[in-house]
């Protein structure tokens, strides 16, 4: 199943600027809030959950990270795709800098959809050209087009 319907022009954060993992998580949390109004009053809670989750084990490898959390009491999944053109240290399992972030927050109740979404992100990220093409994208739409092109059927 495709999860492309969760992404729009506004869900692409084309120029992440932070130089460390904490700053990146804050930028991603702000992006999720901007895409999902019900998260606005819970921004700090969301960021704390994201930091706690990443401290439990890295989701980063091969230039891509998938920081994701669940929150009780939200009605839907929100997703952003962040791009750091220069690459940033993110405690990746292979020690390499991370250029692309798939970040998601989901309601606690959607466990089954969760596995499918992780698989969808990971399948796109596994494509050999994904990171190099995404780093060079000139517009948010270019990133969306790439995701749609590389997404598994």
């Amino acid at each position, binding site marked *: 199943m495709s999860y492309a319907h969760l992404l729009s022009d506004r869900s692409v954060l084309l120029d992440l600027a932070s130089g460390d993992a904490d700053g990146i998580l804050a930028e991603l949390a702000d992006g999720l809030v901007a895409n999902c109004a019900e998260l606005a009053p819970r921004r700090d809670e969301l960021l704390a959950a994201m930091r706690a989750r990443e401290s439990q084990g890295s*989701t980063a*490898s091969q230039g*891509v990270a998938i920081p994701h959390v669940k929150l009780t009491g939200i009605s839907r999944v929100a997703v952003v795709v962040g791009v750091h053109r220069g690459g940033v240290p993110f405690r990746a399992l292979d020690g390499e800098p991370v250029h692309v972030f798939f970040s998601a927050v989901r309601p606690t109740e959607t466990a089954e959809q969760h*596995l499918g979404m992780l698989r969808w992100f990971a399948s796109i990220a*596994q494509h050999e050209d994904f990171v190099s093409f995404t780093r060079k994208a000139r517009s948010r739409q270019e990133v969306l087009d790439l995701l749609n092109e590389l997404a598994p059927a």
Partner: protein
Amino acid sequence: MPEAPAGTSAAGGAVVVNPLGIHARPSHAIVLAAQDFAARIELEHEGRRADARSILSVMTLGVPCGGRVTVRAQGPDAERAVAAILEILARAEPR
């Protein structure tokens, strides 16, 4: 991935008991365990294969709770490698 030294091979199977399947945390545990061995380790689920040293590759399998996984290893410590990965797969949530 560098070529694993020729030598022993081993294989085994497990049914995933984690209620969320092999999501990110178990995938992370598998990769960390795999890094401790010289053997090349591969997971297979429904005909799809993953390199146990790559978290993206492991998550691409999307193995749900109850899913059957075959673990194959090739290298000098293949048997121990398979045993370690099977132990993670059979665990409700990685420590």
